[in-house]
């Protein structure tokens, strides 16, 4: 039960499916929604739904959504009292959070200082370690360059060497045999210099077959912090998540409790306000803090499905100054939820991006099926933005039933006109390893056949060709043109 809000209009500084999702909650709460959009998104679903739509521009479409000044000006122009940044773009930009506050608007998210703290990976890591929470053993070169190699050796193999200025996996090297450490360090340094202009490194314990476990946390401005349990996001490729679920099939009850309380503890220690996610690396009974994302995450719906909470609603309530309406013990998730991300890419062709136009679109329906989508029929799919098209989220009493429901939902999802990774998602869900809950972040790389798939079998090909032949004018016309006598004689020769 939410009381009155201090703002009547919320501007969504984002696009695509998350903009749609946020607008829906804003409208559900009886507030007005506003959205900024670049020309290429002029006909998008978010623009259609929002009460106000303000056009913005930039050298590239992406750059317009990164233009803090335009966004704030847009918010002011429609009398918005709050700005929700969604995820990506400016959501973890402390400067933007500050500017929003300076403009007299409410930033729906944590404080700028929390963003800054957790945005600097090394600073965040140090803070968490100092606060007494588990981080992966590591050696930071900057602490003492002279002893770096020794300290790295002391961490022990397997070891991950990476540029401290880096991200996105560039320059990272796994060292399994300490004899290779010197070479790995030299190479990583060279790449760090080349890609980031900074050759400084850090080395940390590498967890073999690591699983990515993250915990949703929520804090209010009164110091209350709860966790909303974990999500497992181990099915990924090149650090891009593909399938997420809750609860994690890897954790025992005790471990689950331990990881979740650790996350809440970290958020509490940081005085965290609003929604956030603490990410851990888990393997062989050990877990280490990886990083904290100070925003709403893409995969938040799985948490909503099992807890029954609307996280955007919680964010708006916290931002409006309300205390959390429930305690930790009130959070009792049930059942199992899985989210699959539909991307405009072709896993069968080495994940090459695809483009096209949404010619036909039909979402799966039914109990326990939810689709978060930002696309609409007739929309062009281009490479201007991130290729995620929609999220298919299912909920069922057990994991087995959830997997079956997700498979069915993906099959029932009709999108014609742009190639997607739907078949790949189906293959993952049918994979024995996945069904046994035995995935880790390198699983897809270890099993390239899942991505490759197989060419459609002869029976399917025949059906496709039959349909296409009957629906293609030149083919049908050619069939009709042959006189009946000759058609009946077939390939007769004398």
């Amino acid at each position, binding site marked *: 039960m939410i009381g009155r809000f201090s703002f009547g209009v919320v501007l969504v500084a984002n696009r695509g499916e998350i903009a749609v999702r946020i607008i829906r909650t804003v409208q559900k709460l009886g507030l007005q929604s506003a959205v900024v959009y670049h020309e290429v998104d002029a006909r998008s679903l978010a623009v259609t739904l929002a009460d106000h739509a303000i056009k913005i521009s930039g050298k590239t479409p992406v750059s317009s959504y990164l233009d803090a000044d335009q966004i704030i000006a847009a918010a002011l122009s429609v009398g918005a009292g709050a700005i929700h940044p969604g995820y990506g773009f400016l959501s973890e930009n402390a400067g933007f959070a500050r500017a929003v506050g300076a403009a007299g608007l409410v930033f729906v998210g944590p404080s700028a200082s929390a963003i800054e703290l957790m945005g600097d990976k090394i600073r965040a890591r140090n803070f968490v370690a100092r606060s007494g929470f588990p981080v992966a053993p590591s050696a930071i070169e900057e602490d003492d360059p002279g002893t770096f190699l020794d300290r790295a050796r002391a961490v022990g193999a397997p070891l991950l060497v990476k540029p401290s200025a880096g991200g996105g996996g560039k320059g990272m090297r796994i060292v399994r045999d300490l004899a290779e450490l010197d070479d790995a360090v030299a190479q990583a340094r060279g790449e760090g210099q080349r890609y980031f202009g900074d050759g400084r490194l850090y080395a940390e314990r590498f967890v073999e077959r690591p699983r990515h476990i993250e915990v949703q946390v929520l804090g209010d401005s009164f110091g209350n912090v709860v966790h909303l349990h974990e999500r497992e996001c181990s099915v990924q490729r090149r650090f891009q998540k593909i399938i997420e679920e809750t609860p994690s099939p890897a954790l025992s009850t005790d471990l689950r409790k331990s990881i979740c309380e650790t996350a809440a503890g970290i958020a509490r220690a940081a005085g965290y306000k609003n929604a956030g996610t603490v990410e851990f690396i888990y393997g062989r009974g050990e877990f280490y803090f990886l990083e904290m994302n100070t925003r709403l995450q893409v995969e938040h719906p799985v948490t909503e499905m099992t807890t029954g909470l609307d996280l955007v609603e919680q964010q708006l309530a916290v931002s409006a100054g309300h205390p959390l309406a429930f305690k930790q013990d009130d959070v009792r998730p049930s059942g199992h939820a899985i989210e699959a991300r539909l991307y405009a890419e072709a896993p069968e062709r080495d994940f090459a991006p695809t483009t096209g136009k949404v010619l036909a679109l039909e979402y799966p329906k039914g109990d326990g099926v939810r689709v978060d989508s930002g696309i609409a029929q007739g929309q062009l799919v281009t490479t201007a933005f991130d290729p995620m098209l929609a999220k298919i989220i299912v909920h069922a009493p057990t994991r087995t039933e959830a997997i079956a429901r997700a498979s069915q939902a993906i099959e029932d999802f009709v999108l014609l006109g742009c190639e997607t990774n739907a078949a790949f998602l189906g293959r993952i869900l049918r994979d024995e390893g996945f069904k046994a809950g035995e995935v880790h972040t390198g699983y897809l790389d270890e099993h390239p056949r899942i991505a490759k798939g197989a060419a459609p079998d002869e029976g399917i090909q025949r059906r496709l060709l039959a349909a296409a032949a009957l629906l293609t004018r030149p083919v049908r016309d*050619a069939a009709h043109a042959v006189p009946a006598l000759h*058609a*009946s004689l077939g390939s007769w*020769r*004398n």
Partner: protein
Amino acid sequence: MQRVSSLIDTRDDDYRANDLHNRRLASELKERQKVARHVRPERDRERLRRQNKMFVRDRIEALLDPGTPFLELSTLAGNMAYDGEVPGAAQVTGIGIVSGKEVIVHADDASVKGGAWYPLSVKKIVRALDIAIENHLPVVHLCDSAGGFLPLQAEFFADRYFAGRIFRNQSILSKMGVPQVAVVMGHCTAGGAYIPALSDYNIIVRGTGAIFLGGPPLVKAATGEEVTVEELGGADMHTSVSGTGDYAASSELHAIAIARDIVERFRRPEKAGVDWIEPEPPAYDPEQLYGIIPRDPRVQFDMREVIARMVDGSRFHEYQPRYGQSLICGFARVHGYQIGILANNGVLFNDSSLKGAHFIQLCDKNRTPLLFLQNITGFMVGREYERRGITKDGAKLIMAVAGASVPKFTVVCNGSYGAGTYGMSGRAFDPRFMFSWPQSQVSVMGAEQAAGVLTDVKLRQLARSGLQLSEQETAAIRDPVLEDYRRQSSAYYATSEIWDDGILDPVDTRNAIGISLSAALNAPIASPHYGVFRM
């Protein structure tokens, strides 16, 4: 229409012996056709590959609509000429379906002597274009010829129906509004250059096709000018500078795709209205023809049994069944089309000649095409018959055959001798299509008879000089004549000389007639009118 009731017993010895014999003849035919169509010295195949050219049969398969029939004409042209070195006379012609339309395909076979035109090659091309004219069929030329075979020029150059007739026919087709497309896949030199030039549309394949009245060597010899094939007459020059070529293609398949697209533009002609109903297969198995045709060509058989294995439902409406019984006349359907059949059960008498002439007029008035099934040794001779006017009755039959406006089709089933050949619509009487069965014979009289006559003449000559010959010496005169006659009256000789449009396996006759009929109906049918019947 009632079904023919067959009296054939498929289990009797005669039937089985005939069956064995005729199946052997049929498989011999298939084998000889296969060799003529496909067997080539490896060096000729290799040369085509080096020149980046497709084999003619592959070109034709790519040209035709898949899953459609191709009625090839005169496959064995030239099989008994030029020492057998020019199979098919280096030409492939036939009726096929391109983009849904019935067309005449005319293709040079460059794997045989470079596709050079021998006298029989020219005859085969002229015949194909005559068929196109008579039946108003569009033509697709696949040109790839080395030009005329000069050592034999006297036999293909100057006369009325020699090479010039090809270009005359092309011009007449164009005048008639019947379109032609030429695909230039080799050098079209000198006379050959006129085939694409006289076609309504032409396509030249870049790199291998060329059109010029004189090639580079001739040009150099004539004027000293040095010029390459492409510059002189290649695709790019003709399609962008001279305008002699309409389309430039980057490959043979591309050219064929363009040709198909052009044929798709042709206006679909109105077919002549001939009675037609849904087809049905014969009630008797057509393969029984093998058992019915006697292995000895001198043995008579009932043509009704042949008809029963060729027509829809084996249904036959016989006309004047009790009169002139040596000529069977009646109505039937082939692939749904109603036709009038004339078939021989013996020599032609007065009554059968009159019956035939009458029946032809009935069919003509009824707009019913005619099918002649020949097994004829001739007209009856003798005093009684002459007094009854057999000559003028034969003349009436010939007048009717010659004058009929409906399309005529002739199949030489067995013997075809003397004036009987004429009365039963032989080659000279313009059947739209004429086919032979493997064992058939065509000559002025039977070989034995002819050999007998000639030997008698010789013996009498010698007798006047007082000479008497022994059996052996008589045989020495008789046998070579017999040999020669047999050879020259065989179906293989006739087809070699293109006296017919091809030898058919008897069981293929039904389909060949169906396809021919359908093609023939592309031309309108004139009203009936005849010369004077000597009454």
